[in-house]
């Protein structure tokens, strides 16, 4: 490399190789655009578990992984699926969206799994969505989310907006609340949720007195709570996520605001979060979900008992955990109906599948690949558990694009 010329020559050679090789690069039989074939050899069927086991989201996602593992163990103990035992392969998304995409690709292409269960944040779901669509592989997503999505390769077993946010608003309206203040973390779910809330409020004679966002992980709520207090709203609709909730509720109480004068309804606080915030700050506040540990029914008694036996008596069960647990059983039922692990056949068998879940009867809506779920408003008690104060009376049909709601026509 003594001269410029020498260097240029090497570079040219390198570039030439670069341009020639692609033409003969791809070998046949590796991957095809018709998707990846699932590994059905042997007496097990592999499934992927894709959750953040490290990083900030580990707080929530580890419990979801545990619930999936519980379901798999129960199914295996009962004989497996189509005579095969389920073999879980767990991958760590590390709270980092590009890592989620990488791990999803690994599960699909290298492990050739039958389906993947997991993801929590909308951002991680958006990151893996193209991977599942491109490889025509299945993802079961267990968390309530902002709707406005319907991927052909994702099954959504958490609530969409009309099964959580809209019932929450209906409840506030029925309680005679005329004005709300919106507080949320700065990301997709709260912003979309608040858009829906504003449209609802406009059509239902409610006023939105303010709307504030805090960056994810922010723990300084002095100013936001000051604004909330000055606005004198009838209620607060809270879409904060994670750590921010702790700081928000501590500040809320110090400002002298209480559940009696200005209740907060939260959509991201489940039993696990109540534990880490403290009932001192939360007692009496409201939540909107589809499942609580206290939900009655023999299916839930069995689930709670099995979970505590495996992971510890002090571990609460929560809505996302339940939805994840249910998703494994739903996949099993779909596979058994299809008599095949093949993705297209499994998808085809999905419509109308029912399961007696801990939250009550759930049914898959084949058209949207969401499930019919019962909406429940709960009140946080002094013991850290949430008890139901209202429910929708039966499963609500999923409507991710809110097509059945005239006030929502401008949203999507």
């Amino acid at each position, binding site marked *: *490399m*003594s001269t410029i010329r020498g260097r240029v020559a090497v570079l040219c050679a390198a570039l030439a190789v670069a341009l020639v090789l692609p033409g003969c*690069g791809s070998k046949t039989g590796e991957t095809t655009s018709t998707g990846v074939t699932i590994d059905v050899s042997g007496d097990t069927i592999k499934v992927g578990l894709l959750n953040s086991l490290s990083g900030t989201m580990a707080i929530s996602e580890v419990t979801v992984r545990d619930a999936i593992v519980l379901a798999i163990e129960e199914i295996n103990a009962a004989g497996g699926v189509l005579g095969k035992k389920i073999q879980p392969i767990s991958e760590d998304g590390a709270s980092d969206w*590009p890592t989620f995409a990488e791990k999803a*690709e690994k599960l699909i292409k290298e492990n050739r799994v039958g389906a993947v269960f997991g993801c929590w944040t909308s951002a991680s779901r958006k990151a893996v969505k193209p991977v599942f669509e491109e490889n025509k592989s299945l993802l079961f997503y267990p968390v309530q989310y902002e709707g406005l999505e319907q991927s052909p390769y994702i099954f959504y077993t958490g609530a969409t907006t009309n099964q959580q946010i809209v019932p929450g608003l209906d409840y506030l309206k029925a309680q005679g609340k005329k004005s709300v203040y919106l507080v949320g973390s*700065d*990301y997709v779910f709260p912003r979309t949720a608040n858009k829906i809330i504003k449209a609802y409020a406009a059509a239902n004679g409610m006023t939105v007195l303010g709307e504030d966002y805090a960056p994810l992980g922010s723990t300084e709520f002095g100013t936001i709570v000051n604004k909330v207090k000055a606005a004198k709203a009838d209620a607060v609709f809270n879409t904060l996520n994670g750590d921010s909730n702790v700081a928000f509720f501590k500040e809320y109480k110090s400002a002298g605001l209480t559940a009696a004068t200005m209740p907060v309804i939260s959509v991201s606080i489940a039993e696990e979060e109540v534990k880490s915030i403290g009932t001192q700050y939360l007692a009496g506040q409201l939540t909107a979900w589809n499942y609580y540990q206290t939900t009655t029914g023999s299916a839930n008694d069995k689930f709670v008992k099995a979970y505590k036996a495996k992971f510890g008596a002090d571990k609460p069960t929560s809505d996302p955990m339940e939805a994840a647990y249910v998703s494994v059983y739903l996949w099993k039922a779909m596979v058994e109906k299809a008599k095949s692990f093949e993705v297209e056949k499994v998808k085809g068998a999905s419509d109308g599948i029912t399961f007696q879940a801990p939250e009550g009867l759930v049914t898959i809506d084949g058209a949207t690949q969401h499930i019919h779920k019962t909406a429940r408003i709960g009140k946080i008690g002094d013991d850290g558990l949430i008890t139901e104060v209202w429910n929708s009376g039966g499963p609500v049909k999923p409507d991710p694009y809110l097509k059945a709601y005239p006030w929502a026509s401008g949203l999507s």
Partner: protein
Amino acid sequence: MKWRAAAGFALGAVVLFGVAPAVLSDFRLSLLAKYLCFALVAVGIGLAWGRGGLLTLGQGVFFGLGGYAMAMHLKLADAGEGNLPDFMELYGQLDALPWWWRPFANPVFALAATVLLPMLVALALGTLIFRRRVRGAYFAILSQALAAAMVILLIGQQGTTGGTNGLTDIEGFFGYDLDDPVNQRMVYFIIAACLLGLLALVRQLMHSRYGELLVAVRDSEERVRFLGYNPATVKLVAYVAAAGMAGLAGALFVPAVGIISPALIGIVPSIEFVIGVAIGGRATLLGPVLGAVAVAYAKTTLSERFPGAWIYLQGALFVIVIAVLPGGLASLARLLRRQPHGRLEHP
């Protein structure tokens, strides 16, 4: 010495263009493509930090600027003439494209912007910082704060930047379908070629008069000033060059991985770029490249087996390598050969 550099480049070319594509599966090759993007960033950090003593803990910002510039163009191309990108219709409720998106529809502008935009930002910030002789630790902390501010800014503008989601679901790359493994391979080759080309360029720079001056500024800024040079300009060049490399890396990362998001920009990823450089040998040419690839590889494989262990290992690497072996593995090799040249003392 020179024939060895030539041989090194030839060997690198054979490994990257011949061996790797032959032995790796499509999936693993696409991972390698990602690692090579990190290696591109590492070359720049090696120049700025190893040679210039500028510990930039905000390279994620420039990586992100390059990545977003590329992704914006690809999203617009996917959407087609006159249409809004999918996420904008969903979250932005905009009637028209924001003005600062418009130029990115032009491929030439977008490509130029991937490198020039980060360089411009670095130029502006660097001028402000170096001119006032803010240095060392102050510079490191400010660059870190810049990364934090950039993330907050991006996330806050969800309707036009995709917020925390970033820009995802990128389908095509200048008319080529990115789902096709053959095209993925082509992207890999482009990245590998860029890396080799850049290495040649940086080698030239390091051995030039400017390269000597940069090391002199690192080792004793005041003496250089007394010799009549302006250290601020010397540092600025290295900083801007490193920013350009990070921008290029970000731009290439987008077609290779299919996503750019604030998660790749903040304080933590920015400091993670540095560890590979430290391990490989910050003041050498190849050390940062090998270090970055090795760290990224270790992260993937370790986290596949033991999720928590990676964080311990990463922490331990920072402590052990930098405290005990500040020259990185490159200095270890040199120690074994007992050739004390190209020294690196306290920068």
